[in-house]
Each structure stands twice: as C-alpha cells, then as structure tokens.
C-alpha cells in the first residue's frame, strides 16, 4: 500500500532507521564483550564522533577530551560484558559510561588543584542536538522544557553536577551556602524534574 502522507512516512523511516542502528550497535557490543576486536572497532566507528562530542562538552580543552575519549573506549572494551540491553539503550549506556569516566578525570584534575569549579565553562545553555538518530530529540526538548520550569539556581546545581561532576561540598563552597541548602536545591530539582518528565 502506498502511504499518502509523506510526513508520517519520513517519521516512520527515521524511527525504523533508529531501531536498526540500535539493534546493530547492541549486536556489536555483545560480540565485543566476548573479545571480538573487529566488533569493538565497529562500535568505535559507529559511536566515536558522538562520544567525542560528549567529551568536548565536558572538557573545553581538546587534548583533555581526546584523553577522556580514549579512556572511555578502554573502559567500554573491558566492561562490554556488563551492558544489559534489557536495561538500557546502547547509546545511553555508552554516553553514561563516557560521561562517568570523563567526570572522574575532571574531578582528579580538580583534586590536584589544577582547576576549580569556578573555572568550569558555562553550562547554562546546552548545545543544540545534531544527530537525532542517536538520542531522541523528543527527549532532549522535554528535558530542556522541564529544566526551564525549575528555579534557575536549582537547575544550575543539577547541570553543574551532571556536566562538571560538582559535589555537594563544591557547590556549597562556591555559592557560600550551607551544604543543606544545596541538598535541598538538588532534591527539589530532582522531584520536580521527574514529575515534569513523566507527564
């Protein structure tokens, strides 16, 4: 049957392509988990531009971002067996793992006194999403919408924690407020965000 609605047709096409990409990535990760280096290379080819974008978002310096990316893939290689496709989408798993490794590195730099949270680049304005196939832009716009409904200070705490790895203590010191104040802000932000995002 010929579909007379081109808009639906292209949306359907994009959705199917995303499903295909996801299935291919899941299969490649599972093979990489068994030590298949060709499969791991396939994972790298399919995701490295995306994950390098993530690293560049966390590290303003290109050199740091490159090291973080390499670190992330070595971790992906050693932890591929822990990926559970029934629990997480492959790209969320990869992005989360990359983000966590990068944040570990960022914190280590801060703990050596080489940088402070104050020097962190502005995280208030998330970059626009480029490839909607990898991360649904629907989810992106929903998160942006919901973050914008929060008190600006609450929202900033969540963004700085996620993108800069800020701890409660660091946020409290930076803002010159008691730890309890930051904890309340994060708690309030999380509960409001969850309610907003489940609507």
């Amino acid at each position, binding site marked *: 049957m010929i579909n007379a609605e081109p808009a639906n047709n292209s949306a359907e096409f994009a959705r199917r392509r995303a499903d295909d990409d996801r299935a291919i990535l899941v299969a490649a990760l599972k093979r990489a988990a068994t030590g298949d280096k060709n499969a791991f290379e396939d994972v790298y080819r399919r995701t490295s*531009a995306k994950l*390098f974008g*993530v690293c560049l978002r966390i590290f303003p310096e290109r050199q740091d971002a490159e090291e973080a990316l390499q670190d992330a893939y070595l971790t992906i290689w050693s932890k591929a067996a822990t990926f559970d496709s029934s629990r997480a989408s492959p790209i969320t798993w990869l*992005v989360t793992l990359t983000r966590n490794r990068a944040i570990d590195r960022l914190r280590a730099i801060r703990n050596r006194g080489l940088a402070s949270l104050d020097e962190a680049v502005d995280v208030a304005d998330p970059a626009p*999403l480029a490839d909607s196939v990898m991360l649904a832009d629907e989810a992106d716009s929903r998160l942006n919408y919901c973050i914008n409904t929060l008190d600006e200070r609450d929202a900033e705490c969540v963004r700085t924690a996620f993108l800069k790895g800020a701890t409660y203590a660091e946020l409290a010191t930076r803002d010159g407020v008691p730890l309890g104040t930051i904890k309340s802000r*994060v708690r309030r932000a999380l509960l409001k965000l969850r309610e907003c995002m489940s609507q």
Partner: protein
Amino acid sequence: MTTRPLSDDDIVLAGEAALGMLDRAGEAVVASRIATDPLFAAEVSAWQDRFAPMLAADAAPPPAKIWNDIRVKIGTVPTRRAANTSVRVWQSIAGGATAVAATLAFMLVNPPAPRPTEPSPTLVAALGSETGRAAMTAAYDMRRGELVVTPVAMKPEGRFPELWVIDASGDAKSLGFVDATSATRVAVAPAMRTRMKIGMTLAVTLEADHTAPHAKAAGPVIVSGKIEIL
C-alpha cells in the same frame, strides 16, 4: 513484579546516583539496592536516560591517532615482545590516574600471557563507612585466588558481617562471612575470580544469620570500597 511505588527519597537517591553526587558509601548502598530492587534499578536507568540529552552535542570525529592508540592497548596490533609492550604502554599513557586504571583493569582482565617468573599482582581495597566509624582493608592475591580482609574498626552489634563483591551494574555476589575482630582469609571460588578486578566494589553488610552465604543482601552496608591495584 512489585507495584510498590518508589518513595521520594528513593527517587532522589536514584537521581543523585545518576548525577554522580554520592560518596563511596552512598554508591555502595545504591549498588546493593540496584541488585535487590528492580524498581529502584529501573529508576536509576531512567534518570540516566533523562539526563543523557544534557550531553547531546555536535558529533565531532576524533583524530585517527585515538583509535590507533586504543588498538595498541587492546592488543590488536601485533608487537614483538609482550614485556616491552607493557613498558611502552605505560610510557605512552599521557593521561591521569583514570587512564592508568582503565589500562590496568584491561590488562588484569586480559593478561597478555602467563609469565610465571613475575610476582603475582595484588589487588587491594580500603573499605570505609560514610560515618568513618567502621573500616576494613582487603588484599587479594590474584594467583592464589585468596582474599585477606582485616577489620580496623567494626561493631557487628550481634549480627554477622557478610562480604560482597559488586560489579558496575550493581550485581552483588556473596564471598561469605568474615570475622569482625580479626583477619579472615577468604578462598575465592574459581567461578568468582573473574569478578575480582579493579573497579569492582567490595562491601560488608550485617546479616541476621550466618548459616550460609546469601543470594541477596538483607542487612545494611556498613563499609565499602573499590578494588584497586597495590
């Protein structure tokens, strides 16, 4: 499947875990909750999904040298001598401790070849509590598969300390019971030895009975710490 809704505290804890705002003890609590409570585990995953768009950025192809370095480190590129390779791998690591740890983790999971003349690597973990009132050290002899845990300060309060090894996904497996006042030698079962590697978490819970190792922890986590290389 349980239909008990998560409390606000659970939702916040799961969100804090996804943000990475918890301390080590908090992370261990989350790891054991993930292992025992599917609803909570799903909430942590859901938070990761919710936050992931914050990392959405323009895709940027990395320089070719990144993949070349990764290939060398995972051993795709054949090298003349394994011993030399490890030295060069170490020297080529420009990054900080995390890169070193990642490489180490890889090397320990995938040892290049058995070289019996070398001393067996020892993995260690310092287990602490959120309050700082309980602590334990652990040393693991990889060749023998033997773990020695030594309590520094521990009040079991009439219950029995059970040792767990928890992987990154929060899956906890019991290593059996340990003594609260003196060092315990734990022979790690061969099937469990693959879990004894860098980055895994060791944790101790206080359990009401000690007739047999549990499938799941029921008691509170009193100390926890990540496995590292000595």
